[in-house]
């Protein structure tokens, strides 16, 4: 339960408050997780980010920058944001929740049913984040999102400022598999590829699997990139030895393994079809 609420006046202020609060400090973005029934967040000191200038969306020559306090609905309503990002935002099927949930909040949580993380990894997005240095000064970093995914704990005291989609023309497509649109997903998966050279290359494949977490699948990325990937159908026996799939209310481990394999095959076909259309998704 929140026992203290402070509105940060600047990024530096927010980071200082977080450092002072220690493990009890929690950045308050949209609030859909912190205040939610059943949240896993345990902080009691809320540090509101509402007044920080990190909501804007900007379109550069070759990049789209989205402030992390932008809500999922704001992303959908912004014309120049790539469609694949809007699709991912719509995975949050409740408009009212989309009005509240922020890009930064969703990425920071890295939930195993994350709406956005597979897509931004597939998009090869970069993340701008700020950390308080030992001397109290702000250190701003620009890192690949895959680095954030791989070393999340390393960034636990960092504040996400913006996400940068460097190549908005990149092919990115995603799928979310859930019983109903608002049920928790058993699998969310996204495939990204650079098709500009008329070939599939620079592949990123990322998935969120309920009970297993969010992870890239480099072995399949490699086979797609080198042209050896063969989508198998009847029946798909999808092999990911390194991943432990678990039975839960979203489905059995067998089902998740199967449906992930099927979704990847579908995404690959989309990618190949896009290649045939000159890279248009």
């Amino acid at each position, binding site marked *: 339960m929140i026992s203290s*609420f402070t509105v940060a006046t600047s990024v530096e202020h927010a980071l200082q408050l977080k450092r002072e609060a220690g493990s009890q400090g929690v950045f*308050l973005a949209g609030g859909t997780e912190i205040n939610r*029934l059943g949240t896993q967040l345990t902080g009691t000191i809320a540090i509101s980010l509402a007044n920080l200038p990190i909501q804007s969306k900007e379109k550069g020559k070759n990049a789209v920058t989205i402030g992390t306090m932008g809500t999922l609905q704001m992303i959908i309503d912004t014309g120049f944001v790539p469609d694949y990002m809007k699709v991912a935002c719509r995975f949050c099927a409740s*408009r*009212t929740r989309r*009005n509240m949930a922020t890009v930064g909040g969703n990425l920071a949580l890295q939930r195993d049913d994350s709406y956005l993380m597979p897509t931004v990894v597939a998009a090869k997005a970069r993340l701008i984040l700020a950390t308080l240095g030992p001397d109290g000064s702000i250190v701003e970093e620009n890192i690949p999102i895959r680095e954030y995914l791989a070393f999340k704990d390393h960034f636990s005291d960092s504040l996400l400022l913006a996400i940068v989609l460097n190549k908005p023309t990149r092919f990115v497509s995603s799928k979310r598999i859930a019983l109903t649109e*608002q*049920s928790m997903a058993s699998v969310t998966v996204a495939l990204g590829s650079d098709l500009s050279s008329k070939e599939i290359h620079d592949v990123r494949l990322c998935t969120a699997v309920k009970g297993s977490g969010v992870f890239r699948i480099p072995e399949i990325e490699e086979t797609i990139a080198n042209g050896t990937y063969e989508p198998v159908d009847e029946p798909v026996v999808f092999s990911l030895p390194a991943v432990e799939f678990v039975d*839960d209310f979203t489905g059995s481990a067998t089902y998740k393994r*199967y449906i992930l394999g099927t979704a990847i095959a579908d995404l690959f076909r989309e990618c190949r079809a896009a290649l045939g259309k000159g890279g248009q998704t």
Partner: protein
Amino acid sequence: MIIHCTVNNRHMEIPVEPWHSLRTMLHNIGCIAVRDSDDGEGFSGSDTVVVNDVPVFANLMLACQVEGCVIRTADDLSTKGRLNYVQQAMIDAGIVQDGYNAPQAALLLTWLLEHDANPTEEAIKDVLSGLFVRDTGYKNYFLAVKLARELRDHGAYKSKIAPEFRENLSIVGKSVSKIDGRQLVAGWKSYVEDRVEPGACSLVMLRSPYAHAYVNEVDTSEAENMPGVVTIITAFNCPDVFYMSAGQGNPEPSPYDRRLFNRKVRHVGDRVAAIVAETMEQALAARENIKVSYEVLPAIFTVEEAMAPNAPIIQNGPAEYLSGAPDGLKAYNMNTDEREGKVVYPFPLHADNRHNIAAGAHGSIGDVAAGFAEADVVIERTYQSSQVQCTPSEPHIVYTKIDNDRLVVHASTQVPFHLRRIVAKVCQIDENKVRVIKERVGGGYGSKQDILIEDVAAYATWVTKRAILSRNSRQEEFIANSTRHPMRITVKMGAKKDGTLTAVYMDVRANTGPYGNHCLTVPMNACSKTLPLLSCPNMKFDVTTYYTNIPPTGAYQGYGAPKGSYALMMCMNEIAHELGVDPLELALKNKVERGFMLEILKSLGEGREGTVVPVGSCGLGTALVKGANMIQWGKHESCDDSDWKIGKGFAMIQQGSGLPGLDHSTCDVVLNTDGTFLIRSGGADIGTGLDTISAKCVAEVMKVDLEKISVVSGDTDITLFDTGSYASSGTYFSGNATLKAARDLERKVLAEAALQMDEDSAALELRYPGIVYSRTTKKELDYAKLSHDALTGIGRGQLVGFGSFVTNNAAIPYGAHFAQVAVNVRTGKVKVQKYYALQDAGTPINPELALCQMYGASLKSIGHSLYEHMILDKNGECTNADFTRYGVPMISELPDDFQAILIDEDDEFGPFGAKSISEIATNGAAPALANAIHDAVGVWIRSWPFTPEKILRELGKLL
């Protein structure tokens, strides 16, 4: 801290605590329309408000976050009692029924229309995507927006709201505004939560973490001494009264197998202690300091486990009989443990509690063995249904207090009079000491036919004399509420080559869970609301219900009929395929028609012999033929994407209209001194429009406008007895009682007028707008003068019409539901492309409400068929006890083409020809969808829900 903000155009400074949600803040300042149905899950939208022109969930915002903000709540949409155009259109479209989320829907749609004057259906779906609507199935929300636009742009409706029935009637069968619609859509005080007074105590429950265990000790000493604690009730200080929670006719066809608290817990979430304290926080703190010593026992969760030799026995106490005790009872009751309690049977239920059998029923007509012998094809199939939750938007809630040295219970209940009886029994007081006031009910669907929290709160109030609020959390709604009984139904069916059924046998094995409420009636409905659809001369059924350690079951809209219908209609489809006969042809060949004697009903009474009646009004054939035409039965559909296969299915359905021979309704209608009317109906309007039906009956007979009529219902001090709203009884029983009362009053008015006008009453008639007219003298006497003169001290007193309705006549509603689905053979996903619900409701008294109830019940059962399923882990703990994990259908799950059609049939026994409408609509989806899935991909899905995973398994895709 102080929050400065603008709330509903008022600049305010509001003190809050850092942990206060925005909803708490708004509720504290009187915005009662900002409700809560998910405890802050951010799912159902009862807490929707608009902050800085953006709709948000108030439970997911801290109050501190709205400093300087402009906030708008649904409370502000109406001005001085005048509704806005959206609110009015919502009422008229028929979507304001249980009404719990209606204010939020009005707020969202108003917001939408302010930003987009002519929104598309997609825009409407988008804005409502965060709103849970269980009662009316979303469909008419699109009509409501259309009507709102017409009202806004033209000042009147251009569109037809619903079909009209009976030209000879002025208001019955026509669309008019539901009489409680205004208060519900505006968010005015309506529900139990709105009646709670300052200073009321809170009651919280300590619940069992074990599925099966003896409670050896409950140490409350530390908790009792904590601040604010008023009392703690456990198995060691509660009354030694055995009863059951089902609100059913007395004597109840259920065993009394529980006390308020038992020495044995029988499911995860079972009651262990009730803590009453002056605040919720104090009660929760005290709960943490209660120490319980359990002796854990092995648990069972399925019918198969319950049937197994040497299975753990769930109710292993001695059996007692209030009547009809069997021989050998003394021997039967040997070697019991006092911690088990006992099981008291009001009358024999074919039970054997010491072998986990809670109840049984058996019966037949004709010669089933001979029927199978003469068949060309005999098949036997087993179908399984799952445990699903009612999920009313308003959770179970009760407010109890002492007034005038009597116990007063403000309840959200379907059965006020049964509630009074059970509460009096538990408190060991007479019924005259108890008053039950049924408030508006924010969704019941059967779960509020059970007395699930009122018993404890009432007893606590009676012994402490303190006012107490008790409200289930959403998690408690899942684990300690009534749910659909899981059932395993085996159907054996024989038929000749031409499709004529020669014999049908149903073996129903039901899982009642820890207690036996509804353990006979719900499973019996699997047969009694399905077998009478068939004209087959040889039919037999066996029903056996077992105790297990799953969360409690009970009544749920449809009772056992959705499960029986699923099994029987699936099996008919399967045998049609075996025979190579079109399933529609087979249905048409074997269905009943008007005049067919329903002999099977003789053995399907609820605890006693049933009454054999002929089929009366029956729209079954029309529904089948019309539905087949609508869906283009027999035409194969295909999809450009070869992964998607399309199929069609249907199911015949029926229900009842109350329980002839068991139910009883009474009503009186008072002519007020100014010529207006007060209806006092024992019926319990649970949002479906029963009060409106009552008012329409009186308006039709007395020939006055609805505005001249007020209705008080479901208040045990003010109204007369009614068995309540369950088993589809409202329209037929309560409506008929009101109609009889109205006609009684009509006679009395004419008699009084004859005296006052010095005329022969035979020459008098009632005329609109509320006058007595003499055909002889052409004189008129208005009701106001008539009533005034009757009450002047020399008159003959107040005129009151009285109606009491009992019957053995059945008014059975029939119908057929058709579905077209697309099934993805690679993912197992099912899309419902078309869903057509065709039903014969006799004369639909409120046609627009009837249609919305058909949509609501259909979508609910689509949810049960495709998505919903309570999942227990190996210890019996429900792993998906919230909305998000559980998976209820929202507006995004609407069928692409969703139509409800009222088949016109005039029933000879119903009020103005009306029959029931809502419950039957839960019976069609499972078989229609399963049959359509088979048509699409060739696999029979014989268990609920039809998840993609199950379909993939049947398709051989999952190893």
